[in-house]
């Protein structure tokens, strides 16, 4: 079987300027920091990052933000990283960040659709809000804070739903606690987050994992992400700590 084990720098070598990259985790818990660090070293720019949040400064995708590598961030919550607001508001084109906010459940399900071949899904979340379609202007005269393309509203048995479309990416950076050499991955505690959906929703999937084990060492009952989804495995991820 093809050897999928690479160094972090080898694994991210294909992530070029302008790529769209999904990053697992929730407030950086479940984010593969060794892969983020490698992407910082590589220095690819104008990235579109899809992640639940912006991490915090110095953690998770916060490192990519500080290094000026993100052009567009698709996330559900950015309030715990003050650098997001600063970069959204700046007039400096080199620092400018475009931020697209998506409700957390909708973000997770759009990625799941991207991983499972579905053309989208119907959700009651966001009906009657700007998420259905519209803009929120910046009263300080900057770019629109929110700009959402009008979505189809579909009524099923008397209730309105929004049609939300699938999300896919060029790359996914996911984090496991135990990964066998085929790529089968088990996640510990609350690190699972967006990782299993993202593993199916990108063309090239890299797992940064705490422990690499032999094939067969993970009980099939405990495999959450199948190795068929995984293109590259990088060991040496640290147990997550606040």
């Amino acid at each position: 079987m093809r050897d999928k084990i690479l160094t972090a720098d080898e694994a991210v070598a294909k992530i070029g300027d302008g790529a769209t990259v999904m990053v697992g985790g929730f407030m950086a818990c479940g984010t593969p920091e060794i892969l983020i660090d490698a992407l910082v070293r590589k220095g690819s720019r104008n990235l579109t990052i899809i992640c639940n949040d912006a991490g915090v400064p110095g953690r998770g995708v916060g490192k990519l933000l500080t290094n000026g590598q993100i052009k567009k961030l698709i996330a559900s919550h950015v309030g715990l990283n003050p650098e997001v607001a600063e970069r959204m508001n700046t007039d400096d084109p080199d620092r400018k960040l475009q931020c697209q906010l998506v409700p957390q459940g909708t973000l997770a399900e759009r990625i799941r659709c991207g991983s499972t071949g579905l053309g989208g899904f119907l959700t009651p979340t966001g009906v009657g809000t700007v998420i259905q379609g519209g803009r929120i202007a910046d009263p300080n005269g900057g770019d629109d804070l929110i700009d959402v393309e009008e979505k189809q509203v579909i009524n099923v048995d008397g209730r309105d739903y929004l049609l939300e479309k699938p999300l896919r990416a060029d790359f996914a950076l996911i984090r496991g606690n135990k990964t066998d050499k085929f790529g089968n991955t088990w996640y510990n505690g609350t690190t699972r987050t967006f990782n299993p959906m993202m593993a199916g929703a990108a063309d090239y999937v890299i797992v940064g994992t705490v422990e690499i084990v032999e094939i067969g060492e993970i009980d099939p009952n405990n495999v959450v992400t199948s190795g068929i989804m995984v293109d590259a495995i990088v060991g040496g991820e640290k147990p997550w700590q606040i």
Partner: protein
Amino acid sequence: MADLKDTRDPKTIIAARIASELKDGDVVNLGIGLPEQVANNLPEGVELVLQSENGIMGMGPAAEGGKENVDIVNAGAKYVTVNPGAMFFDSATSFGFIRGGHVDATVLGAMEVDENANIANWIIPGKMVPGMGGAMDLVVGAKKVIVGMIHTQKGAPKILKQCTLPLTAVGVVSEIVTEMCVFEFIDGKLTLTELHPDHTVEEVTAATAAGFAVADDLKPMI
């Protein structure tokens, strides 16, 4: 009467009142901040199944120093414990629980609520753009939406005729609990159902921009 005044912190008054209506075994999602205090004010014998939307059903108290499990945090990225019978899951599953109506109640704060049960709590254009996180899903999916908040923003009403901030959802609020009173939406009408003994209906009216009815059986808020 001054010696009869409720000396508790206003946020504790709110958290304790919300805790008093939750039933043993209820599946509840508590927002960050004031709503988290609800878990510390539960009546004797009431155990909740707490959901943390980052991936826990059956969350326990905060982890004691030195006993943290590095891979287990709550949605505020703080170390927590899990109770016997807990489950970990991914974010799609988490919001399946939420939208699917499997969460009995969500308790969250708000910047504005209005008399049509609309809520706004995710963006103040020009001031802050934190994002909605899981709030938009929680308020449409949970069976009961309890807003716990200080009654006014430094004297400015937050319970309005119509929200002025971008909405989190339309017509979803079940109940508003403040340090002054409890409002419930009864047959779609904002109704004052409980009044804190330190306040009068006139004081509530002065601090509230929305129109409201007063329940025939207005009760003291404890």
